[in-house]
């Protein structure tokens, strides 16, 4: 089931083929550090802040932000994981599978939730995440942090914290992890 990078085989069995490396691991670390400072600044501290990474690409990024915030402010913020497969609006029209279970460590009532994902593209994942989050309480505010914003929005959604804006073609594929950001294409396995 599991592909070498730890993700389950995507429906259809396509794998990512890298063509160009746009950011390396140091670039990503610097971007995440800046975003961490922005989170502290925007919220005047970290009171009530909860980081929620989207399964799976967003989860390690949320953990990295958490480590930065601990360094900057000396506080541990709760970190959760959210899977949005069951909230997508395209379940009936394309193969959708959950990546991994959701795990929200705390009641989100009144909290400032920072959703964390690797890539912001059409905005449909974030729309699904907003529905999914409401199952865990009524957050006071929800903000969005993404490592890469690649454009092509289909919904009125924007990010509050962006690591890097990278204009892409719609049929290209992007992989953004702690190790770097690569542009390529999905090819059948």
């Amino acid at each position, binding site marked *: 089931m599991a592909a070498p990078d730890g993700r*389950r085989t995507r429906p259809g069995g396509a794998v990512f083929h890298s063509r160009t490396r746009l950011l390396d691991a140091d670039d990503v670390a610097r971007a995440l550090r800046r975003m961490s400072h922005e989170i502290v600044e925007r919220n005047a501290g970290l009171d009530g802040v909860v980081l929620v990474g989207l399964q799976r690409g967003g989860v390690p990024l949320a953990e990295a932000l958490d480590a930065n915030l601990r360094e900057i402010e000396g506080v541990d913020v709760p970190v959760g994981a959210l*899977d949005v497969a069951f909230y997508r609006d395209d379940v009936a029209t394309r193969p959708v599978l959950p990546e991994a279970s959701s795990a929200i460590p705390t009641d989100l009532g009144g909290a400032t939730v920072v959703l964390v994902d690797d890539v912001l593209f059409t905005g449909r994942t974030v729309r699904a995440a907003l*529905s999914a989050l409401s199952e865990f309480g009524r957050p006071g505010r929800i903000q969005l942090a993404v490592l890469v914003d690649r454009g092509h929005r289909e919904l009125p959604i924007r990010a509050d914290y962006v690591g890097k804006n990278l204009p892409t073609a719609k049929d290209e594929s992007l992989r953004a992890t702690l190790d770097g950001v690569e542009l390529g294409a999905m090819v059948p396995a």
Partner: protein
Amino acid sequence: MADSLRGRDLLSVAQLSRDGIVEVLEVAEAFAEVSRRAVPKVPTLRGRQVTSLFFEESTRTRLSFETAARRLSADVASLAVAASSVKKGESLRDTVETVEALGADVLVVRHRASGAPEQVARWCSRARVVNAGDGWHEHPSQALLDAFAVRAARCAQRGTSSEGSGAAAFDGLRVLIVGDVRHSRVARSEVIAYRTLGATVTLCAPGTLLPRDAEGWGVEVCADLDDALGEADVVSLLRLQTERGSGSHVPSLAEYTATFGLTERRAARLKPDTLITHPGPMTRGVEIASSVADAPNALVTKQVADGVAVRMAILFLVLGGEPARLGGAP
């Protein structure tokens, strides 16, 4: 993946590969998390209709499928056969076509005749069919939920997470299936599921309650329960199916209990971490002693709770990704 459940009917466990079964178990883990929430409901199948067609009595399977469908926000319709036109002589085919014309996306079918769900699937033009038990043939969802419960319990015993564990829990696992194998659709599905996942299976039953073709199942057969008990990692107990005539295959219930029942004395000889499963309904005091059924390593009620998550996964997968449905029904 041709052996995945995605977008297909579920008629037999045999249609699934090892990866296909593991996929069901992994998706079920995500639904188990949903089931633990304060409001255990997701909007995934909103607007889809799940119809249960039970031509044979059932408590848990029907309730479990309908609960699963509701937790997925599907609409649930349920045909009470006793109060339907079936009693006026309507054929199975006409019933199925009527139900499908009423907008069913999934038919969950139980029938006393082996193979009936497969026949129903042939008649359906659009809806997916899920076999909820057909005669002596198969009960796929039960075997999948047994595998789910066993995987979770084995991983918990080792202090590891079952999510993402694949089929590792079944490597070298020794499963002992005891009782009325001949009339048991659960046993047929369990044998296929456990063997596909990599476990070895031993059947233990009176000669009269063994299927005649058991040699072809790829299992060991053992006539003496006391010989087989000590090595088993999982003991799967079956009910004596008196409604299918198994009462006439044993001299008396008391003798059956004495030779093939999991009594307290026998349970004491199991390895301490051996798991006990039973598909229900249990006949306490016959195939299982009451105290054994309530012991911590008996998964019986856990199986019922896990059953909902596994059936959510089944409904989700059989309806998964159908480009043909784009733009709604024709």
